[in-house]
């Protein structure tokens, strides 16, 4: 049997699938269980570190979910942390959601926690506009900022936290790395501020953005408001020099 075929069978074994006994004898499959156990164990530690709030909610079913994640979402990156990137996809699967009956916002919470890590670790890039270069805009169905605060500070029983759904409330979040402090920051965008952020990101100046906005909606140009917005965005290191 060629090495390529053998390694395809080893891959199946590491994804919890049936393997061909002609290629991998029963003894080998038993021996490979050591590797599978080690992979699951390190995956579990990695995911607990990256998704502490999800872990708080999913703790009772965590090990089962790790097996499902390992088997369904293989990593195509040599960078170890990237292995954890698709957790929100698993949690969004209807069958998984139904089986483990976790709160309705959980997949979005996983995406929120993952984005925090991505922003923190993102490679340094040269800014091409006045908008801070390392950022992401995410649109949520649930009020994630409020939920995250609730999960971090709530004194509700863990059973209640693990089973309570939250009402839908659309939210657009702007995640970015403050390149001065190198800390993550985020804020909720209104549709108007999303318009402004996108326009800055496309290379326009604030005054130009404001004028086109006023022309579009037949409003009077308010230079004071522009100056204030500029100061606020600069203070938050979103607008850079």
């Amino acid at each position, binding site marked *: 049997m060629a090495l390529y075929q053998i*390694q395809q069978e080893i891959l199946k074994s590491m994804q919890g699938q049936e393997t061909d006994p002609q290629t991998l004898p029963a003894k080998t499959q038993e021996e*490979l269980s050591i590797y599978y156990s080690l992979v699951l164990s390190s*995956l579990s530690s990695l995911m607990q570190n990256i998704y502490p709030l999800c872990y708080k909610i999913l703790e009772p079913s965590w090990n089962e979910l790790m097996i499902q994640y390992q088997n369904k979402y293989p990593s195509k990156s*040599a960078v*170890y942390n990237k*292995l954890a990137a698709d957790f929100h996809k698993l949690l969004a699967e209807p069958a998984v959601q139904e089986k483990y009956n976790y709160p309705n916002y959980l997949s979005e919470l996983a995406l929120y926690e993952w984005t925090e890590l991505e922003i923190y670790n993102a490679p340094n890039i040269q800014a091409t506009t006045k908008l801070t270069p390392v950022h992401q805009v995410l649109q949520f169905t649930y009020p994630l900022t409020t939920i995250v605060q609730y999960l971090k500070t709530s004194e509700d029983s863990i059973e209640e936290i693990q089973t309570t759904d939250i009402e839908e409330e659309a939210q657009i979040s702007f995640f970015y790395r403050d390149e001065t402090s190198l800390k993550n920051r985020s804020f909720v965008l209104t549709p108007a501020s999303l318009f402004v952020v996108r326009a800055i990101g496309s290379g326009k100046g604030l005054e130009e953005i404001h004028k086109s906005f006023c022309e579009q909606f037949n409003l009077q140009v308010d230079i004071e408001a522009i100056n204030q917005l500029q100061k606020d965005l600069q203070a938050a290191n979103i607008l850079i020099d």
Partner: protein
Amino acid sequence: MFDKDKLIKPGLGLGLRRGLTDETLEFYKSPDNTGLIEWLEIVPENYIKLGGVKAKKFQTVLDSKIKLIPHGVNLSIGTAPEKPGQPSYDPYLIDACKELFQEIDAPWFSDHLSCTRVGDIYLQNLLPIPFTQETVNVVSDNVKFLQDTMQIPFLIENPSFYSTIIEPEMTEAQFINSILEQADCGLLLDVNNIYVNATNHNCYSPVEFLEQLKLDRVVQVHIAGHLQGYRSHTGHSIEILDTHGQAISQEVYTILEELLARTTVNAILLERDSNFPALRELVEELKTIKNVIARSNATRQTRKEKYGTLSDTTRNPQVYAGTGN
């Protein structure tokens, strides 16, 4: 032709781990560092395309001017290509590593004799590869490609393994030697892995293994700790697990001493990847390693005076009583 004498000899080093970076650099510059930490090993996959706090911290390491040597975990030199005769590699990783190696002026780089990627899927573990001629060919093609691309020597590391996958066509030592020859590369010899394999597979004594290897190719040594006993989720158990998370055992120090009594090496590294103790405990281990080096040097000198100039593989049974298991 590979020649380890042409490479730098940085001496004793420690693995750079983020949690210990500040302390390690402080110790490196302190008067207490009497040749105990002369270089640091980095896992390149953890230092490619950095940004934010991690980039800033790495810059402090670069600013310290300590020598950095990369040791990969995901170059996956054991991966078979879909079409035989082609190297198997991840272009993104290769490009990123090349950039990093140039930045740190790496004298060589290394990775394990194992498979961590099948096709484009990373398995996040050092999976074993069969000891066959086909594997020798696959690994050699991959290593030659890496050496040609990076333009610096590559060292293969003998891994710990818990399965031989299929019936071996050759012994582990023959397998390693064949690759060293065919790929014309160096060897990173992990003395803990020798002990782990010898114990788990009861297949050789560590000294027998050493004597079968091409020791003139050993550029670097890894020494680490292991865990007694491990059981998988299916109940399969092994005697020793290679963890790099415990103190070094006496048996492993003995293998290091036996090795260094037979050959000189360019660099020795204390590997600690988990269950981190305070840096002072690692420094104590480095002192022990330094004593082992001194004793081995004396042994080698005595041997030279007694038996004349001996090649790395020449031995005298009276001098080399095996440690066995």
